[in-house]
């Protein structure tokens, strides 16, 4: 087994799932939240030449998606190192 002990294995998976949950909450909030469910309300706010809800739906959500994956990558690489399960 790659882990030092069973506690490590459980803790690693738990930290992974907690990171996953946080990032997916953001993923849901910018697209389904800001871009769809609350788009009409946010459209009352002007953001440069955009209505805010429209901007999230056609631009903003996509930028956040890209950022989310790179954040996940960095955090997971650190987590792998912390538990000694990274690849050589």
């Amino acid at each position, binding site marked *: 087994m790659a882990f030092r002990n069973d506690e490590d294995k459980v803790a690693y998976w738990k930290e992974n799932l907690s990171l996953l949950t946080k990032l997916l909450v953001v993923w849901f909030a910018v697209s389904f939240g800001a871009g769809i469910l609350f788009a009409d309300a946010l459209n009352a706010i002007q953001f440069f030449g955009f209505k805010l809800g429209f901007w999230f739906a056609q*631009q903003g*959500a996509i930028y956040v998606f890209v950022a989310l994956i790179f954040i996940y990558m960095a955090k997971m690489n650190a987590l792998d190192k912390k538990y000694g399960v990274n690849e050589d």
Partner: protein
Amino acid sequence: MDIQTLTFIIVGGTFALYIAIAIWARAGSTNDFYVAGGGVPPVLNGMATAADWMSAASFISMAGLISFMGYDGAVYLMGWTGGYVLLALCLAPYLRKFGKFTVPDFIGDRYYSQTARTVAVFCAIFVCFTYVAGQMRGVGVVFSRFLEVDIVTGVLIGMAIVFFYTVLGGMKGITYTQVAQFCVMVFAYIVPAVFISIMVTGHILPQTGFGATLSDGSGMFLLEKLDQLSVDLGFNEYTSGTKSTIDVFFITFALMVGTAGLPHVIVRFFTVPKVSDARKSAGWALAFIAIVYTTAPSLAAFARTNMIETINGTEMQGTDYASAPSWITNWEKTGLIEWEDKNNDGKMFYSGDDRNEMKVDRDIMVLANPEIANLPAWVIALVAAGGVAAALSTSAGLLLVISTSVSHDLLKRNFAPDISDKAELMYARLAAGVAIVIAGYFGVNPPGFVAQVVAFAFGLAASSFFPAIIMGIFSKRMNDKGAVAGMLAGILFTASYIIYFKFLNPTGNVPENWWFDISPEGIGTLGMMVNFVVAYGVFKMTDEAPQEIQELVESIRYPKGSGEASSH
């Protein structure tokens, strides 16, 4: 030099490049043929994934579609990008660690069941054929417009090129040609968009020009102007849509989950050397895709404003047909623009009510954009090369999945487990060849239902693969019976709903008849839920997965010890 000659030179040059790459990257083993030897650098794999993903439809039709849909176009923009977040966070790294060649491989091994494997193989083949028929058609359309050969010749040329580098190079050849195709495609998409953005708003970046003031001296924001024009002409406001919120929600979700479950996208993550590379290359893939997907809505808004002002004139009184710009008469010949002078005043007028005299095809928005903006001839040639690159790269990726499914999943893992690597490679090449011929046939004789079955491809991927893979990774006790029952229930539910509204009762395909206001495009989301619920119910009534499978699942949850992808 005229446009015709330039187009031949630029498109011909890109073809020579693809062929040269194919010869350089020949496949020597099934490992090369299926997963490019597992040694593709993550950034290059990101480019290849982006090219694989962005099809002729993305390149040619998406911006036009959005410009006619306004806000509702967001379902495609978010749906086809948000799936990559799911892919990067929940699927790609684990599947890479698992280390097999195909999606049915994972499903078959994880659920220790030939039935599960077979269901997955047929889903994979169906999804890929649905897609590839449309791609070959895209090649034909681009050729016939820009090179003025007929569609059949266009499809045949496209088939020959794809045949050459897929059969010779397999995944290895495809990967490196896709990298080249990505560069051609993005350059061809961005250049006209930048020109048109500078023209309309003075901004170099289309993404900021989208929210800027118009440079016509009015001081109005582009979107403000577009909203006003739309309302005056009897359309809906551009920044609010016509679809119900729940339908937008479900379609977006189905497209996201479907994207994450598409076999030709998933398989790209088997080609990188390490698990951490799978995460990284998903990030790069989405970054590269985002370049096009954030430009598309800007382009849509510019093109729509431009088109309305060209046809109706800046005073919105219509313009004389006699003095119409040449692109209108050029594209009239192809039937993509039609004008009928209903009030006999000799003027063209475009609107959303009964004053309308124009029929404008949405595909024109990207294809005619360089002409509308009066760009130099080489830009028009570049757009042709980009359209062909988009269609070729996606078809090659799909054809590879089909050939792998036949030679590896059906033959090697089902009927003839003892065949040698060499024989398997030969069958893979043979299967790729046959698949290209079938795809070409559909390209020349397109079934009338291509547009309808795209909803099918996403719906099926969303309701079958996605839940099965997610449960396979995140629930180590999920068993074979649960997974198979879930997949079958998900597929049957989704397929019946789509078949009913698209084929059996197309006239009844209106919101009043839909369940919970959900259109057939969005039903995959509900299908996915059905899959999860049924799988969990059956799982609760049967024995949990055996100990060795649970250990297998635990071992794919951390990166250490990932070897190269293998068949063992």
